[in-house]
């Protein structure tokens, strides 16, 4: 059912009894043209664009648990296109543009909130690196501004300008960046995909791939064998475990990233702020919670939980740059499993196995990429060629030496 002001009014006046399920609960068919493995944000977005933009028919999304249960259900909701490298920036700018039209595209309010992201710089070198990045952003058609200390003080008077160990020198501001309501993104894509005929099948775990003569013919699942002309894996966080079933080793390690939310507060900070000299970034949700995080715990983990040293490190970073938050209380901490790739950038590519496609390695940047990832993956599935904005996100880039290493830390996943 299409959502409209009239619909809400009508439902409200009739006891809200007419709301229909947002998606069907179909049983899987025996075969599909496309099977998307993974009902997270990227998988559902892929289904949406494949059906809506590329006219794909006969599509299923298979989800092991409940849709949106992966990292789209546990991230810090930041949306931005402030990358520096050619292999990334046009892709993320495409994504941001899709975000800007998402609510209308989906007829679902994912509460995209363009309140800006400010990256603070604390040395001349960092400022210049941000300038370089900001220029790359402008060249890709994105917006970027380099703020000086005075402009930052005006915008964020609550930052530590008096007693900071690493004084604020400058900042890179992207006003079009912001946050979105993460769960709603999954639900909105799911609803739209469902309306376009996609079968979303929850509680259906892929246990193996059906291979013949080096070709992938479908998947074995907890609900039986399902054939597919094209099988598209999209399970960031579990990529290695799933692709192992197809005999592939990936340039990916799994790491835990913790995130934190405070109790609800009246509006406190304007947008997203990242602290360039500490491990801390923060935004405020529509509900009022300060949503913040920092670095990976640093050890490989599938546990979806972290340990105290990082909690304390993140909070001391927060207290250093924003000493007003001391009396706000941390309400909840959690961990997500990140597909940390060897250069910090993702993959949207064919595999060496015919009929099998791979999307993963999103590190902790997957949320903002959701629309473009879905779009470009759908493009790849429909046309068997890479979308121009994802043309460097290839699995063979390490063989060729074409790394997309924004941080410049090399093949060290826990540092990206």
């Amino acid at each position: 059912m299409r959502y409209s002001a009239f619909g809400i009014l009508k439902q409200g006046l009739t006891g809200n009894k007419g709301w229909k399920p947002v998606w069907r609960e179909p049983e899987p068919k025996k075969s599909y043209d496309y099977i998307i493995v993974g009902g997270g944000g990227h998988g559902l977005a892929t289904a949406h664009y494949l059906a809506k933009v590329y006219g794909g028919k006969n599509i299923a999304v298979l989800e092991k648990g409940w849709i949106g249960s992966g990292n789209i259900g546990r991230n810090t909701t930041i949306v931005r296109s402030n990358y520096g490298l050619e292999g990334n920036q046009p892709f993320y700018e495409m994504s941001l543009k899709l975000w800007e039209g998402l609510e209308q595209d989906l007829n679902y309010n994912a509460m995209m909130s363009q309140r800006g992201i400010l990256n603070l710089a604390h040395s001349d070198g960092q400022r210049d690196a941000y300038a370089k990045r900001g220029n790359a952003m402008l060249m890709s058609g994105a917006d970027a501004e380099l703020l000086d200390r005075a402009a930052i003080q005006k915008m964020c008077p609550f930052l530590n300008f008096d007693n900071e160990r690493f004084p604020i020198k400058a900042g890179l501001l992207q006003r079009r960046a912001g946050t979105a309501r993460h769960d709603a993104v999954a639900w909105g894509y799911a609803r739209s995909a469902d309306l376009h005929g996609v079968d979303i099948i929850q509680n259906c775990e892929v246990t193996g791939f059906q291979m013949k003569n080096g070709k992938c013919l479908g998947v074995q699942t907890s609900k039986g064998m399902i054939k597919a002309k094209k099988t598209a894996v999209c399970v960031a966080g579990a990529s290695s475990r799933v692709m192992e079933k197809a005999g592939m080793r990936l340039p990916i390690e799994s790491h835990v990233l913790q995130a934190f939310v405070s109790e609800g507060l009246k509006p406190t900070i304007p947008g997203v702020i990242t602290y360039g000299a500490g491990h801390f970034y923060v935004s405020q949700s529509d509900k009022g919670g300060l949503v913040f995080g920092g670095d990976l715990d640093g050890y490989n983990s599938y546990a979806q939980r972290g340990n105290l040293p990082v909690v304390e490190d993140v909070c001391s970073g927060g207290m250093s740059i924003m000493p007003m938050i001391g009396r706000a209380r941390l309400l909840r901490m959690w961990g997500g499993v990140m597909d940390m790739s060897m250069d910090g950038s993702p993959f949207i590519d064919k595999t060496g196995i015919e009929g099998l496609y791979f999307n993963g390695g999103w590190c902790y940047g997957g949320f903002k990429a959701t629309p473009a990832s879905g779009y470009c993956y759908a493009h790849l599935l429909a046309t068997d060629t890479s979308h121009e904005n994802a043309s460097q996100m290839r699995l063979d880039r390490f063989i060729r030496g074409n790394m997309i290493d924004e941080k410049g830390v090399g093949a060290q996943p826990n540092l990206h």
Partner: protein
Amino acid sequence: MIINHPLLGPRDANEFIHLGDESMIDRPDGMGEHAAKNFHEYLYLRDNPAGKYRELWYHEAGDRSWLVVTRDTVTHEIFNVELARDVARSRGRSK
């Protein structure tokens, strides 16, 4: 987490730096055949198991030993801690 250092006893994991898979010890011969292919697999491809994992930690805020820790990546339980140098020797890295 607590890592039971073979020389120093139990130490907080916060004193250590985590590198990654134990296989980082098995550096290929750069002058050997297929060096490019071998180095690609060595440096970039990972088993990344969910379960028992042998991994390298460095006691940076301590005695600067490199250790091989056998740990479960799902439960974080640690089963064994060895000096990486001993492991390296046992894996044939002596001259």
